[in-house]
């Protein structure tokens, strides 16, 4: 038996796969710990949005607009779930490009699925952390408890997380296909969803063609559902089921897109050129 085989776990075994996935998580966590700016960033922008919209709700409440606080603050909190899930997964991948470390990762036994699993797990941790900070702020500053959303909160967040990861994968695929200049797609894609998702207003205000598009956006069903719950209605499980189904389809499609983009990058020698 060679020294290598005694040093390492069987590469296709479950223990090795778990070790590699957690290796990605540990590495990204260590990088985060060493970068105070990144830690600051996790809750800075969400907090800015929360404070901004919080004051807006105070004004609207003074104008006796019903549900202003709950609708807007609930929307800001859930929007951050979507935005951060999308951006964090892209950033984690881009970090490997920026640090010229991508080739080291690509020649390691880490499979694409394990790499993505690691990125997703790490982004989940960051989203949860940011959300906890924002929820505490919302409660402390505006008396809005995130649990007001009730039992729907977890599935609402789940749908948005998965949609965010799918969008993040599209951003990564764009960078693999078009090169580093496509980073802008990774950042901005989620903002294309924003106007169609009815985050701060009901989808009914959209023109008919855009309303039809929003029907196929899982996020629009989440935000409509959130408003229903906050108005005192029941959790619209049928809408949630439709949104979850869409999520599954989009996630499968974007994983396929990522696999295709990686194959394209390998075929055209693009991996070798990142970070040059």
């Amino acid at each position, binding site marked *: 038996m060679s020294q290598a085989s005694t040093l390492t776990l069987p590469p296709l075994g479950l223990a090795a796969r778990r070790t590699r996935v*957690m290796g990605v998580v540990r*590495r990204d966590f*260590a990088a985060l710990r060493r970068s105070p700016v990144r830690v600051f960033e996790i809750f800075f922008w969400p907090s800015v949005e929360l404070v901004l919209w919080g004051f807006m709700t105070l004004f609207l409440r003074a104008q006796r607009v019903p549900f202003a606080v709950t609708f807007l603050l609930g929307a800001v909190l859930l929007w951050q779930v979507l935005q951060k899930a999308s951006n964090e997964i892209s950033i984690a991948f881009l970090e490997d490009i920026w640090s010229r470390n991508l080739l080291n990762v690509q020649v390691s036994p880490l499979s694409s699925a394990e790499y993505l699993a690691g990125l997703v797990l790490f982004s989940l941790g960051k989203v949860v952390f940011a959300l906890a900070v924002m929820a505490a702020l919302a409660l402390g500053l505006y008396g809005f408890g995130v649990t007001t959303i009730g039992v729907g909160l977890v599935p609402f967040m789940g749908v948005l997380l998965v949609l965010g990861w799918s969008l993040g994968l599209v951003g990564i695929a764009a960078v693999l296909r078009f090169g580093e200049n496509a980073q802008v797609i990774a950042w901005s894609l989620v903002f294309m969803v924003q106007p169609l998702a009815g985050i701060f207003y009901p989808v009914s205000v959209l023109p008919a063609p855009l309303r039809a598009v929003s029907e196929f956006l899982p996020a629009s069903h989440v935000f409509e559902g959130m408003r229903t719950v906050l108005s005192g209605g029941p959790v619209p499980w049928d809408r949630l089921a439709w949104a979850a189904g869409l999520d599954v389809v989009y996630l499968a499609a974007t994983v396929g897109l990522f696999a295709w983009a990686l194959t394209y990058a390998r075929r055209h020698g693009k991996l070798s050129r990142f970070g*040059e």
Partner: protein
Amino acid sequence: MAILRASHLVKRFGPVTAVRDVSLTVGEGEIVGLLGPNGAGKSTTLHMLLGLITPDAGSVELFGMELARHRTEALSRLNFAASYVDLPGVLRVGEVLDAFARLYALRRPRERVAELVELFELGPFVKRRVMALSSGQRTRVQLAKALLNAPRLLVLDEPTANLDPDAGDRIRGLLTRVAAENGSAMLITSHNMREVERMCDRVHFLSGGVIVAAGSAAELAGHYGAEDLEEVFLKVARG
């Protein structure tokens, strides 16, 4: 027995053919050099052998397995370092090695990292960020990373390009010794002909994407009527 067998590799990038028809083998414990002028196709060839670039034609077999089908198994037994690849600068040396120890699914990552820290005399820097190291110190960290899994094949693309002669000499000595102890084979590209003469059992010369000469340094010097490998290089590069 060949642990690496590349057969008739071809790679085109648009109208440019970077590699025309490259076949090579690396045997167990053997140190093989891949030489050639800039643009000869060395890095493209290495990247095809590592699965970073998909060849247009030809095949790569590592440890008796087709790389395209057994990527994880094959890559777990090799490792790689290059002068143009870096490590996450924000991390401390110990954190970088620990992270890669886990990506290679080592059974006892801490113990192995400690061994390599000692071997490469990285103790004083282990808590320093990679970005704060000199290029020589960074190269040592890269090579420590490349030896984490005691690879059966170590692929090095100009490993000592950023080092001064003294540091380069020490690294060469260390690599040769460790490879002999582990029974690791090495495939190296370098522009330092003395380095190649000193380390390599066999050399392949690439020019225009084709292997134009192969053999030991002495055989090649004899074949080209040259004093040493540097002269062979000049003759090959200038046609």
